[in-house]
């Protein structure tokens, strides 16, 4: 939820969109979907070209120094916007929850990190509650289930927001899976460092998805979605995988993540 936005006609609030590295490299469609959703909600959206990665790989692997340097870059690049919006719960969580902690011993950047943190939002949490009048697209009648990615869920409390937004897309019906709040086994570099354990976790997750009988599985984090899509493809499932932004923006005209199409 975002507080009421200054509605003076002088200037639209400016949003800096941080597309994230995975979206940039693997699924640009999610970035364009986020752009479309934000523009439709009345924001002046800027996508800085100096963005790369939020620094989670370094941070979560114990490399605090590189994490700090990457964080500084993100903080500087996104300093000038009213809001920073991220189509990923884990990258938004990194910026909101972890950036300030990286600068315990650096008063200047602590201050900057805290400011950015207070203005940074995950995409669905940002969109939920604003632009209520905007009609969301129609979909051909189909069912979906939703995977709650861990960082978004537990660091940012994102659970009901994507569901509320998706409920406004006509044609969609929701089939909750068992244990939607349990990790899919991606975990960043975890999935390649501990492939046996990760493989077991994604197998369990995909079983829960298939048990719903849903046509699609949606989520808000590309890492988890690639993990899930990869496993679904491996077992020749026809469940298709999309990022929630793609569905909300009506940008499902390209093949789903991993290419499966039901």
């Amino acid at each position, binding site marked *: 939820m975002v507080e009421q936005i200054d509605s003076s006609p002088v200037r639209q609030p400016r949003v800096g969109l941080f597309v994230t590295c995975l979206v940039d490299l693997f699924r640009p469609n999610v970035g364009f979907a986020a752009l479309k959703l934000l523009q439709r909600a009345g924001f002046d959206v800027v996508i800085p070209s100096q963005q790369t990665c939020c620094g989670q790989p370094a941070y979560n692997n114990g490399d605090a120094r590189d994490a700090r340097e990457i964080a500084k870059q993100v903080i500087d690049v996104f300093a000038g916007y009213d809001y920073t919006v991220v189509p990923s719960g884990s990258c938004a969580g990194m910026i909101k929850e972890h950036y300030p902690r990286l600068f315990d011993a650096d008063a200047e950047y602590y201050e900057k990190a805290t400011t950015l943190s207070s203005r940074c939002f995950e995409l669905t949490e940002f969109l939920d509650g604003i632009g209520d009048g905007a009609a969301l697209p129609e979909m051909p009648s189909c069912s979906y289930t939703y995977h709650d990615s861990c960082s978004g869920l*537990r660091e940012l409390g994102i659970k009901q927001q994507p569901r509320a937004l998706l409920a406004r897309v006509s044609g969609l019906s929701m089939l909750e899976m068992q244990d939607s709040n349990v990790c899919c086994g991606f975990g960043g570099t975890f999935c390649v460092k501990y492939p046996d*354990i*990760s493989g077991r*976790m994604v197998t369990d997750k995909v079983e829960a998805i298939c048990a719903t009988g849903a046509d699609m599985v949606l989520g808000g984090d590309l890492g988890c979605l690639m993990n899930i899509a990869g496993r679904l493809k491996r077992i020749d499932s026809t469940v298709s995988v999309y990022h929630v932004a793609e569905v909300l923006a009506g940008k499902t005209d390209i093949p789903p993540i991993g290419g499966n199409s039901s």
Partner: protein
Amino acid sequence: MQSVAHEFKAHARRALQDTTLQHALARAKGGFIDQRRTAIEALPEFDELRACAKQIKNHTLAHLDYYLERYEAQVKADGGQVHWARGPEEARRIVIDICRAAGARRITKGKSMVGEEIAINPALEAAGFEAIETDLGEYIIQLAKEPPSHIIAPAVHKTRGEITELFYAHHRSHGINERVSDVASIVNEARSVLREAFVTADVGITGANFLVAQTGSSILVTNEGNGDLTCSLPRVHIVTASIEKVVPTLEDLAVFLRLLGRSATGQEMSSYTSIFTGPKRNADLDGPAEYHVVLLDHGRSAMLGNEFREMLRCIRCGACLNHCPVYGSIGGHSYGWVYSGPMGAVLTPLMVGLREAADLPNACTLNGRCQEVCPMGIPLPTMLRRLRMREFEQNLTGARSRWLLSIWAFLAKRPRLYQTLLRPFVRLLAIGSRGTRRSLPLARGWTQSRDFPTPQGRTFQSLYRARQRKQ
């Protein structure tokens, strides 16, 4: 026990292929989670209690020296003795000396994780004593010669069929020649065998869930009543406990007890909550003649002064294990020492060494479910991340991942170069694929159990800049 945490990966792989273990884990997991949820939903003030317990523990840890001295003074005033042990070896020696001085032969034991931490059973046996575990789960794993795989349910990895065979093999010496397979009969058989041990033991050793500074009491929470028989029947009662177990008053204790049972097993209270204060007094009908408390440090005072202090709030309820998807996949033995799951992944490296247990802090997706259910609000993912930072500083991170990470960080800090180099790389990955690849050089970790979803083709930045140029 000797740590085998350095073999984590091999043990985890074996555990994943062990169908009996997988069956036992799947069955246990659902039960613990559902029971806890039901108990907590029935207690609207759970979050307030949690905040209150956290505050009490933080206060106690900030004044730990004071409360420990007060506890010691109270124990002495009641006629008991307190022994301070810096590490496992010292603790073992103290316990063995007490047993020798008591002329003991047979020793009964209540479940004690500190007992496991100091590996007291093999030490007692090596010193010529007979040590018998009396908690059913501990008894089972003692017969199986295995370490506990869960801090509150040590034999959770065992199926009923395995226990049937284990009892059949070991109880013939007690004149029992039939296989029993239903739960009630298994419990009854253990009870009849253990009864003899209870009445003939010279020393009883138990752990403590809490120590109360105000009264010098040790608190023991069980569901089987074996703790009471271990404490009150033998001539000598030894409590093995660690220094962070102390709480200021009995009233404070009540807060923790309300959290512990619910978080552990979903019980409002465990079946037995026993308070032991000193040896038998003249007017008492029963109780031990001697009462000893062995207080173990084993790295805890160091944690008090570093970035792992919050871990000392842990009350060993096991909720983090029950909710951990990694623990649920591989079970407790994979962790290679006495503590397992998220709390074990923090404690083990701090107690047996970071090099020995280097895998444990990394074998976690940082999904945060452990922190969410922790009744003491311990930020377990943060603790694990801090251990990863220590590993990185001490060069314990694997060479390959260090190398790949440094390349990534180098590029991430140079947006122009990042875009220039990754654009063709992404294109290459996309060529000729139909959504995914079944195998990929250097990515076997990913592709062993899932396909690799390939990129759309062009990067977002290049598509977006091209679109902007057109406009």
